[in-house]
């Protein structure tokens, strides 16, 4: 019976991982930029949820409505004004740029919020859902469902809308996309905006589960990295599958080998996938 409980925990975790990774994967796939800043944006989303709740009494689910447009706009402007200038540079240079931005973000947050761990506590909690012996806190369950729903929305946006198709087209062949009249630089900014938006909203959801501190972004970044290589780079369904796979593996890993080895296990899994199927679980031709 413990198995089912662990599976349920893994699924909840996995849904949140999918949300974290979808934006990271999108930016990596379309822009060929490894966005080290992604983790700090998640933490910023957490702070937004924390302060909105502490000062204004706004539930994190509602802060998403503010976080989404805010982080989208910030990401758009950052890409348009700064990262676009280096977009043609080799991947290591853009990585250095986002690494530098991340250091600035981390230290800025240390200055503004101090290094204290803060915990967002929803009072009263929504209670628990008991399915036989399996117990899931409803707050967490809703956070996970919301995370999956937002990831699903991102998928729909990319596959069904005009602007989404343009993002995918730029990812596949930027010159051909330019011939279709797509402004590639604008699509880069839209993509980075979407990535920042997904990071910000997953941060607001994660704030309900994990304590927030300026340097925790690195952990989330590691998760995003594993999920996106696991599932297949640049595809939203890949991030979903990879996220849930990682959530389940980590939960069972913690049970069997102790929580201290869960992260090691997930990186081992990453190495195995890279050896066996380097395109990721859902890797598709044309997306490499």
């Amino acid at each position, binding site marked *: 019976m413990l198995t089912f409980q662990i599976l349920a925990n893994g699924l909840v975790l996995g849904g949140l991982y999918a949300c974290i990774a979808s934006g990271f994967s999108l930016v990596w796939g379309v822009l060929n930029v490894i966005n080290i800043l992604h983790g700090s944006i998640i933490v910023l989303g957490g702070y937004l949820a924390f302060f909105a709740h502490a000062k204004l009494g706004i539930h994190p689910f509602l802060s998403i409505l503010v976080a989404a447009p805010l982080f989208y706009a910030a990401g758009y402007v950052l890409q348009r004004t700064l990262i676009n200038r280096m977009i043609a540079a080799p991947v290591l240079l853009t990585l250095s740029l986002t690494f530098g931005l991340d250091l600035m973000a981390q230290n800025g947050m240390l200055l503004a919020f101090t290094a204290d761990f803060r915990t967002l506590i929803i009072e009263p909690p929504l209670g628990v859902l008991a399915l036989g012996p399996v117990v899931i806190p409803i707050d967490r369950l809703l956070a996970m469902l919301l995370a999956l729903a937002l990831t699903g929305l991102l998928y729909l946006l990319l596959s069904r809308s005009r602007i989404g198709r*343009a993002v*995918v087209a730029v990812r596949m062949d930027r010159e051909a996309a330019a*011939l279709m*009249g*797509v*402004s590639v630089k604008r699509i880069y900014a839209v993509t980075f905006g979407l990535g920042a938006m997904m990071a910000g909203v997953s941060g607001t959801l994660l704030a309900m589960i994990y304590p927030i501190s300026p340097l925790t972004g690195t952990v989330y970044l590691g998760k995003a990295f594993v999920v996106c290589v696991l599932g297949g780079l640049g595809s939203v369904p890949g991030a979903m599958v990879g996220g849930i796979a990682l959530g389940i593996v980590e939960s069972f890993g913690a049970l069997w080998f102790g929580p201290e080895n869960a992260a090691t296990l997930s990186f081992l899994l990453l190495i195995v996938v890279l050896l066996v199927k380097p395109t990721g679980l859902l890797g598709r031709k044309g997306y490499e």
Partner: protein
Amino acid sequence: MLLIRNLHAGYGDVPVLWGVDLKVEHGDIACLVGSNGAGKTTLLRALSGLLPPNSGSIVFEGRELAGAEPERILGAGIAHVPEGRRLFSAMSVRDNLLMGAYLRRDGAHAIGRDLERMYGLFPILRERQAQDAGTLSGGEQQMCAVARGLMSAPRLLVIDELSLGLAPAVVDQLCDALRRLNQEGLTLLVVEQDVATALELAQHAFVMDTGRVTRSGSSETLRNDPAIREAYLGAI
């Protein structure tokens, strides 16, 4: 309709075009022939804005377009079907065609009607509409690429390497479709390595050699030109 004058372009320090002059009349099918490395593809890339020219002028329907962004050139009415088709391979055929209509602002209804027109022009695309474009055969891909170019509702369609790697029957089918489009009022500029096919399709032809247009005239004249016959048509 299209007037290119003294166009110079190249890659970095390497000049490829050395003053190209070319004129396409409204309602014409023009072809551009020449050997490998003559600069045909470079000329098209400069024309569609992928490669900003170093100097010279490109006037289309009275508007100067040299150095403009691809977006503006497509908006002005010139669509470019690139060499090697360059379809979005993991996107469905239908989505590829819709990408062609990306800049259009005349509403989903008009775009849907043109989609139907494309399926009428190349019925195989209707059957394949939900398939990834990368799974199509070479001929089907070229049809999809031409249809994608047409979806922008251009007045001038520029095609690079129409027949390269395609079976003769497919080339005939494509040429028939292009003739029909031309009768409906579309102007065409086709780059073609197979000179015999090109001269049969087009009314006017331009011969490029080492970055210049060295000869031009009606297809009839060029077909009977001894130098052309010897260099490109294999006649002695």
